[in-house]
């Protein structure tokens, strides 16, 4: 295929057309215009929602300014995470070293905002000029009496997944430092939900209705003090496997806390997540409460989905997301709407995840790792897709092709998790696919339409 560079071919698979092979977790190909970001991005997205921490980006201004208040991660209290802090390194700092500036910036910002902790993100050039972040953080921690944690997130030292790991390592330094008194045996930490549009509040409410105590949100609406006592929870419930699974592993090793993987997207996966937690605790009363909860929610949501399903049936969907866990739920969610998924891809999926995707998708479905705009374009055209699910960078690709779009990334302002989220998702998909504007767009050959119309008018 013309759109595919030779070096990219092994990162694309077509379900059922050949035995499953797919190479992933590989460095992006130079010049291929990957949709991925970098190690720093991985760390920043995971830690960002911790709302009472100071997030200081140590480097030139770009990394901080491009991540200023770009996510829909809400807080029920402090909003320090929505500010963009940078040491804004200048040429002279690069030559003489940025440690002193970092120290002074930290002191200044901690005095100004009184955060409960601070994360100091390393960027590309910090890794080159060799600033000792550990030493500076230790010094400030001793002076200010709050955790000051370096995040080893130099952009070029791996890909986004390595950034997730760096973020997990940073959080692991806070976990275990707090008092765990009074935590229920039926208690969990929620890992891998970022409280976009208030989603974690819905999820917490479900767990509360089941009689489960949530110790720490990691990291949606997150707090340093909750992280510090997260080791007191009985179970880690992990969503978004790529981003926080490393932390669950660390906590299992250190504190023997087991973990289960869940997804809150789509009603099937949402219900399954709650049942899995209830079953883990094995308490009959909790199980009963969970059944009741699921029943009530389904009774509310399913009838409302019917009207969407009627009109959306048979429409074709493509999925391109950051981590592939979300793709599973989306495949199921589209099935619930009787829609057909014809392409699934992600920036940072694992071989195992792609293999499983190949198993659950229909024959001919394109599975792709680390795609780029031209590949996405060719897949959308080839499959005559009606809607693409992705993030901001994918949006103009879809729109230029006259394809509908649903934002399922960190920037979004719509809650798409939980039972209500499935309804919102259906509404989103419906409002894009069913818009009358597509009659003017390229998929319906806008140009021909215009010529035809003018011919008719001229002919009278």
């Amino acid at each position: 295929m013309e759109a595919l560079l030779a070096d990219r071919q092994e990162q694309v698979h077509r379900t059922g057309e050949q035995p499953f092979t797919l190479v992933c977790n590989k460095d992006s190909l130079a010049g291929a215009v990957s949709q991925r970001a970098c190690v720093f991005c991985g760390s920043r997205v995971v830690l960002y929602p911790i709302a009472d921490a100071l997030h200081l980006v140590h480097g030139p201004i770009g990394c901080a300014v491009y991540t200023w208040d770009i996510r829909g991660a809400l807080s029920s209290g402090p909003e320090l995470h929505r500010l963009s802090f940078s040491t804004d390194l200048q040429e002279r700092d690069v030559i003489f070293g940025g440690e002193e500036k970092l120290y002074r910036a930290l002191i200044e910002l901690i005095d100004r905002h009184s955060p409960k902790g601070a994360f100091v993100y390393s960027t590309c050039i910090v890794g080159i000029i060799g600033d000792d972040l550990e030493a500076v953080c230790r010094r400030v921690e001793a002076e200010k009496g709050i955790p000051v944690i370096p995040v080893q997130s130099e952009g070029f030292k791996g890909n986004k997944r390595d950034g997730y790991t760096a973020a997990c390592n940073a959080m692991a330094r806070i976990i275990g430092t707090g008092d765990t008194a009074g935590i229920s045996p039926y208690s969990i930490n929620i890992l891998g939900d970022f409280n976009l549009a208030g989603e974690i509040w819905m999820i917490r409410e479900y767990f509360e209705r089941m009689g489960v105590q949530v110790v720490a949100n990691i990291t949606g609406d997150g707090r340093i003090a909750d992280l510090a006592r997260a080791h007191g929870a009985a179970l880690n419930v992990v969503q978004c496997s790529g981003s926080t699974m490393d932390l669950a592993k660390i906590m299992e090793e250190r504190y023997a806390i087991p973990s289960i993987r869940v997804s809150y997207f789509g009603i099937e996966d949402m219900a399954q997540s709650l049942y899995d937690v209830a079953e883990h605790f094995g308490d009959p009363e909790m199980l009963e409460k969970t059944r009741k909860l699921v029943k009530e929610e389904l009774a509310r949501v399913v009838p409302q989905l019917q009207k969407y399903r009627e009109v959306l049936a048979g429409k074709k969907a493509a999925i391109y997301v950051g981590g592939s866990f979300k793709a599973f739920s989306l495949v199921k969610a589209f099935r619930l709407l009787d829609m057909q998924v014809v392409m699934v891809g992600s920036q940072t999926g694992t071989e195992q995840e792609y293999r499983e995707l190949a198993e659950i998708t229909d024959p001919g479905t394109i599975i792709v790792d680390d795609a780029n705009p031209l590949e996405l374009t060719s897949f959308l055209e080839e499959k005559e897709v009606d809607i693409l699910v992705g993030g901001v960078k994918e949006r103009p690709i879809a729109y230029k092709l006259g394809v509908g779009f649903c934002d399922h990334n960190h920037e979004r302002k719509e809650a798409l998790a939980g039972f209500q989220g499935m309804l919102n998702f259906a509404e989103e998909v419906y409002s894009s696919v069913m818009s009358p504007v597509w009659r003017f767009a390229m998929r319906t050959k806008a140009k021909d339409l215009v010529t035809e119309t003018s011919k008719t008018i001229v002919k009278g």
Partner: protein
Amino acid sequence: MSKNPPNYISTTNACKLCTPLGACLAFKGIEGAVPYLHGSQGCATYMRRYIISHYNEPIDIASSSLSEKNAIYGGGPNLKMGLVNVTRKYQPKLIGIATTCLTETIGDDVGRYLHEFHRETVGTMPIMVRVSTPSYNGTHMEGFHAAVTAVVEQLAEGGEAVGGKINLLPGFISPADKRYLSEILDDFGLDVTILPDLSDTMDGPATSKYDKIQPGGTPLASIATMGRATATIEFGRTLHGKTAGALLEQKHGVKRISLGVPIGIEESDLFFASLSTLSGRPIPEKHAQERGRLVDSYIDCHKYIFGKKAIVYGEEDLVVALTAFLAEIGVVPVLCASGGKSGKLAAAIKETTGDILAEQPQVFEGMDFFDISEMAESLAPDLLIGHSKGYPLARKLEIPLIRVGFPIHDRMGGQRILHLGYRGTQSLFDQVVNATLARKQSDSPVGYSYM
């Protein structure tokens, strides 16, 4: 009256973007060009997201996607591989290569890599223009201008001057502005090269096929003839370093006419007068009429806005122009702030407003939104003028924000905002007046539908 500028160590909510972003935007305004960042993958992706959110258009920025190994042993092989891959996939006419803080710090010699690469690939590759844009030096505007200079330096040829042909270097303007400038120059009968031109590449129509590289941009053939123009008009009163206009003058003897960004009547008059001189024609009736209607509206509305206080922020040259505009309509600019550090902002504002304003506003370079917010508390402004990132401040102060420039991330149509000339000024003026009227109306205890 000017108090000391805030002098903090840290930067909070920057009022600037990084150097390579500006270079990418400038390259994107050239026919058949693909911007390319020599750095790690994240830079390209972050900038694409940032730019897309303003224009709602695809922008593909390629990257060397450097890894740790490359950072240690040098990024040359990745650069070359990336250029080959971009060429194979996009068949560009030009690749605009900008460096990043990573490759500048590891000391990659891009010039040498490209020299080797040219030898290895004789005649098979597109034109390559390179610019050095370490993000620890300057803002996106320095990157933008440096890329324009690099393009002119490497592609403009000399030769005998062609009568009636001029160059226009407008700086970072909106697609709507560019289209309007073309209309004006056409009306004066001037043959103009506008560099760069984002009007089609970043504001394209929906078409019947997907273009790998959006059509439009300044034609390469026109850039080649820039050294033979009779004059270059270059917008920007705070430009520094070697500008493209200065280079054309020194290298090819093309007369440089330096003007402010034409916003407001005074600055627009200078622009129209220059065109009149260059073309030997009077101001076309259509534009004279537009000016007349603008003056008429100034008079109709003057009382509603007189004495209102405004904070202006953003790119330095835009701030100068907006301040000049506000001054001439009777709005008092109380703070003019930019993240840039040209060293020329205060002088440029004084030059354009000195004969109107009894008192010069507080003017500060190197500002961030924390500084601006802090000062705003005592200044009690009635409105803000700048890009979307001032919204949190406008919300806190409960005052209107007039959205101009880049980025517009919280409204649609940033690419269609018209700022320049009599027509753009008219649009801005109506927004300022109506925002003020709307405020008064909503604050009114009775409400009214007739003023």
